[in-house]
């Protein structure tokens, strides 16, 4: 996909402190339409906090984030309407256990996009078919395996027609044999041109599917580059050390 698309996120000197601890330290970057940005880095370095700042699940303590030209860190902005355009997939799936798979997927489109139940369900079934889970439409989340839950979480976010999807370690809570099925859904999305920002430890996925890889360390982006440059010719010493440990 084109990585010269329009700018979706413009992040300017983003800071986040928890108490005295500065977790994000003046982060500035852009994310363009069609990009698949993979964020890697040591545990506790601020990857999740950065990702969660993009839809304001974490409120920045300083700096600005613009989404599609609108400064969403401005307190007068109603963030709910923007969040509809920013999908999110969590490490622990966060499906709604009291609702069936179909209800999980149609709740937001019906209530927020004002789709009719029939429209929303037809679309949800279509997506379920795409990830091979249409026979689970009337099951409850507890009846699914981890890999199935995460695939549902992904299509649930797709039901809102987001312009970008944020993934926070989507495969880290899965048994190893289920990682592949989730990554393959994500690869398909990337191929279809979905803009994605992904925190993950899956380096092969980062290399093959990512259009840009970002190394976050001590609350800063220490290096960002194309996957090839990033993995084959890392410049930052901390990144070199990080890669030598995990590859």
């Amino acid at each position: 996909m084109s990585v010269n698309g329009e700018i979706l996120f413009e992040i300017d000197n983003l800071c986040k402190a928890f108490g005295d601890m500065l977790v994000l330290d003046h982060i500035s970057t852009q994310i363009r339409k069609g990009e698949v940005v993979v964020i890697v880095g040591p545990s506790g370095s601020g990857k999740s906090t950065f990702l969660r700042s993009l839809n304001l699940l974490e409120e920045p303590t300083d700096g600005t984030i613009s989404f599609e030209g609108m400064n969403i860190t401005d307190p007068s902005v109603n963030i709910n309407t923007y969040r509809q355009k920013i999908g999110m997939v969590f490490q622990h799936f966060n499906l709604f256990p009291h609702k069936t798979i179909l209800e999980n997927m149609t709740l937001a489109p019906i209530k927020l996009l004002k789709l009719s139940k029939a429209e929303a369900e037809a679309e949800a079934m279509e997506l379920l078919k795409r990830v091979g889970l249409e026979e689970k439409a009337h099951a409850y989340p507890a009846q699914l395996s981890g890999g199935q839950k995460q695939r549902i979480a992904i299509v649930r976010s797709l039901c809102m027609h987001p312009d970008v999807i944020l993934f926070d370690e989507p495969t880290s809570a899965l048994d190893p044999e289920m990682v592949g099925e989730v990554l393959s859904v994500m690869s398909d999305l990337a191929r279809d041109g979905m803009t994605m920002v992904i925190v993950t430890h899956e380096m092969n996925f980062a290399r093959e599917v990512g259009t840009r890889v970002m190394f976050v360390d001590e609350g800063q982006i220490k290096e960002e580059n194309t996957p090839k440059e990033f993995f084959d010719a890392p410049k930052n010493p901390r990144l070199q050390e990080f890669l030598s440990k995990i590859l």
Partner: protein
Amino acid sequence: MLSGGLQNVCGSFLVDFKDSLYQNFIEDDRYMYLVSGLGTTLVITLFAVLIGIVLGFLVAIVRSTYDKTGKLKVLSKICGCYLTIIRGTPAVVQLLIMYYIVFVNFDSKITVAIIAFGINSGAYVAEIVRSGIMSIDKGQMEAGRSLGFGYAQTMWYIIIPQAFKNVLPALANEFIVLLKETSICGYIGLMDLTRGGDIIRSRTYEAFLPLFAVALIYLLLVMILTKLVSILERRLRTSER
């Protein structure tokens, strides 16, 4: 000789018992004290339960919103006072205050009792529901918010239904407690089940049968409710989770 005496004793006891039953319940239609008293008890319990649920949920939502987001501070403090006062004073005293002070010019005793017990039960329901809300994983709120739901919408569509399900058995138990608690409404001259039995006692000068009859009726009601709760619990456990 000996067995004949025993027979006599038994026989006269049975005769006495029959007389006693007749006097206490049949004569002058005295059983109606129990029937109408039971009606009053059930009406008060039912409506107090409804008020208690609504009030309890509102208070629980305000307090857990403050706990989780720091918003609604003033409202939450007011709710805190309400809980402290209601849970720190006897229900009888609350009932008397309602009747003699708050609703002094009010005609309907039963309405006063319903309000008093509703407010009382709301305090206990609030704590049950709040624990239910706080027990829901915070990922649920985040998932709702990330789809674009507001805080209140996420509460309503996602958090409350799960919390309600989790605390349903505890809520049901609270209502069993409330059913028994309404037995104090004779204090404001209401004719509930307990009072009904007591009136029979004062008419027949016999305590045993009327009071045991009252106790038996409460016991049966509680046993039925307890059974329903356990059926409910089993249902909830088998569905989906």
